[in-house]
């Protein structure tokens, strides 16, 4: 039973990898190519959610600025695709990406140069966000800024990056962003069904690696010290640990995951724009984690997929209602379901509900954690 519970996420993953594309291809159960593409996007958003879980769920630092790193990853891949693609849609008369013509730029800005290379661009997807995260993180954590202050400073830095990308038309096409859907990759047009299926599969192949990386980081004494920072940081200092490098490392990893996430999302949505750095998008990322279950590793993936799927469904049916639903979801999860969906199941919330309706035997409330098998395995892996 325990083993089976552990296998569920992997079974779902295999299902998503092999069965969903077939369903989309054959249009089974109304599942179309369009839906498959949407699911690809949801899975790519799971990466940034995993990163947020590391810094918020485990380390207790609520970053409202993950959109920075997400967008940086997206811009990195988009810049590469725009440079190397030569076709009528994307290339202007002077051989540069077309949008430069609109602003009369005929000299490629210097920071575009490295993105001619495929390998450099792939590396940049996670290295550039890491460097920015490391720098910002170091400057903030060095001064023992934490709690709400950390949140509002990360949000302010997000605004800064947003304004910068939004205002610099000559460098990155300003508010219009960079369109990747008409570019070409591996000889395929990035917007075509074949390319999208490829991106979907790449996303699903990378996701377990991101999961295992987070597992590696959170399972040992390193992970314990992260929880130590969350529970009682001064105590950790007095035990001889310097929390700053721990926090910087976690912030860097979260930034790198966000970068990968942004790149995968960009190629699947066909565009990267400063909108990715809007205040709301970054807070939404946090709420995916909260809905799924923070402090667990399955939770963020679950949350990213479930919330975004819900978003698609609601927006298609009642476009105006989504903000209401989302707002209510925020409030509901934070107040009534602080452990999220996954935590609700594993920490006995589901059983408590069944018990309340007389459908399950009441469990002893103390020591609850000791009797609850799943909570045990969770805390052992946490």
């Amino acid at each position: 039973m325990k083993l089976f519970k552990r296998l569920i996420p992997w079974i779902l993953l295999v299902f998503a990898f092999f069965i969903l594309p077939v369903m989309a291809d054959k249009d089974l159960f109304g599942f179309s190519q369009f839906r498959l593409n949407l699911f690809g996007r949801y899975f790519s958003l799971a990466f940034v959610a995993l990163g947020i879980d590391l810094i918020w769920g485990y380390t207790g630092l609520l970053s409202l600025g993950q959109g920075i790193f997400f967008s940086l990853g997206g811009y990195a891949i988009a810049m590469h695709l725009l440079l190397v693609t030569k076709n009528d849609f994307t290339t202007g008369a002077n051989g540069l990406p077309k949008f430069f013509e609109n602003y009369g730029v005929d000299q490629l800005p210097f920071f575009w140069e490295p993105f001619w290379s495929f390998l450099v661009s792939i590396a940049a997807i996670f290295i550039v966000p890491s460097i920015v995260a490391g720098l910002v993180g170091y400057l903030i954590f060095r001064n023992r800024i934490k709690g709400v202050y950390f949140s509002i400073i990360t949000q302010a830095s997000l605004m800064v990056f947003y304004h910068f990308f939004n205002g610099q038309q000559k460098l990155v096409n300003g508010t219009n962003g960079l369109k990747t859907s008409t570019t070409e990759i591996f000889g395929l047009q990035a917007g075509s069904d074949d390319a999208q299926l490829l991106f979907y599969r790449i996303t699903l192949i990378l996701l377990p690696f991101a999961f295992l990386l987070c597992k590696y980081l959170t399972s040992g004494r390193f992970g314990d010290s992260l929880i130590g920072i969350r529970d009682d940081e001064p105590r950790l200092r007095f035990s001889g640990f310097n929390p700053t490098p721990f926090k910087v490392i976690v912030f860097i990893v979260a930034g790198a995951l966000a970068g990968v996430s942004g790149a995968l999302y960009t190629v699947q949505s066909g565009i990267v724009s400063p909108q990715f750095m809007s205040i709301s998008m970054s807070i939404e990322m946090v709420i995916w984690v909260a809905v799924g279950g923070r402090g667990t590793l399955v939770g963020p993936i679950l949350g990213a997929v479930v919330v975004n799927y819900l978003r698609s469904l609601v927006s298609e049916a009642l476009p105006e209602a989504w903000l209401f639903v989302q707002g209510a979801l925020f409030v509901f999860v934070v107040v009534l379901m602080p452990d999220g969906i996954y935590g609700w199941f594993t920490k006995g919330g589901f059983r408590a509900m069944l018990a309340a309706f007389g459908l399950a035997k009441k469990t002893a409330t103390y020591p609850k954690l000791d009797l609850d098998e799943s909570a045990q395995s969770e805390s052992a892996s946490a």
Partner: protein
Amino acid sequence: MELVFSQILDGLSIGSVLLLAATGLAIVFGLMGVINLAHGEFMMLGAYVTFVVQNIFRPLGGTAFELYYIVALVASFVVTALVGVLLERTLIRRLYGRPLETLLATWGVSLILIQFVRSVSLAMVLGIGVTALLGWLAQRFLPMSLKQASFSSYLGGAVWALAGVLGIFSINIFVSFGRFFSNPWFGPRNIDVTAPKWLQGSWGSVAGIELPGIRIFIIVLSALLLAAVAWFLTKSVWGVRIRSVTQNREMSNCLGIPTDSVDSITFGIGSGLAGVAGCAITLLGSVGPNLGASYIVSCFMVIVLGGVGNLVGTVIASMMLGIIQSIIGSGSLLIAFPDMPSGLQAVTEFFATTSMSLVLVFIFIIAFLQFKPTGMFPQKGRSVDA
């Protein structure tokens, strides 16, 4: 030079609006350790209240219309303060001691407020009324045995969810009654408020420089309000209570200070100040449902820079922010000093937009925090957390 002076006046008036909003945020943060992300939306509410009051007064015409703005000031304070108290009693209170969760929940509230303003119509108000009525009736007439059952909390949730669904259905029915019911009151577009005549134009001149009425009015207004807040906090009974809870909540509770009411009142005042700030913003240009987002981050910067629970710090920080934004952001330095060295000129030009001046301000703040991590005016004394 005159240009620079008038830009400084501009900056001071923007700074005054920031000051009002940031003071509200800072008082609440100081007392409860809570950052209200819906604070910007409270400003937006204040602006919309002003718009409504104006439309009510417009048919009166003449002197009565000229005075609408005074009424709007009071109304925007009262309405947002009431919404704030409601928010505190229903939501913030449940999250006491969990500041990060409060941050997220208030963001959820801000989303609801934005969409509410965008799509509120008579049908929607009636629908909400139906939901509230059904929910209340169900609670009222639910048999006692069910209420005391072990699953009552789940049942209550289900009842409200059902009432909500019925409310949505009733909205659809009301909408079919015609445009009078279905037309949104404000819609997603920006709205404009006409300043009364006595605020328009110039209020005389000093040394050949015109004093624009609106700007001076906003500066004076925020100075007066700030003085009132300072008086309230230092001299009034509730003010002393608020300060005592800010310094030591447990001890105040033990001494019989009603911390619950103190929380509500503080939150109400903080929200009310945001409402007044929103009312003032309507004088500076048109406003829309997204007004809040553009101001809230500036408010944060003020708090980070000026420190919490320190009115002087808040004043200096907000004025600095306002002036930097208006002088550098407008590019007036380039016009005032045409013969600056070319390197400096290139830098000034690069930052000479409103958004880029924000970038500059932020870089400045991060640099500043490296030397003074606790802000310009750190709170002294033995810190409570060990």
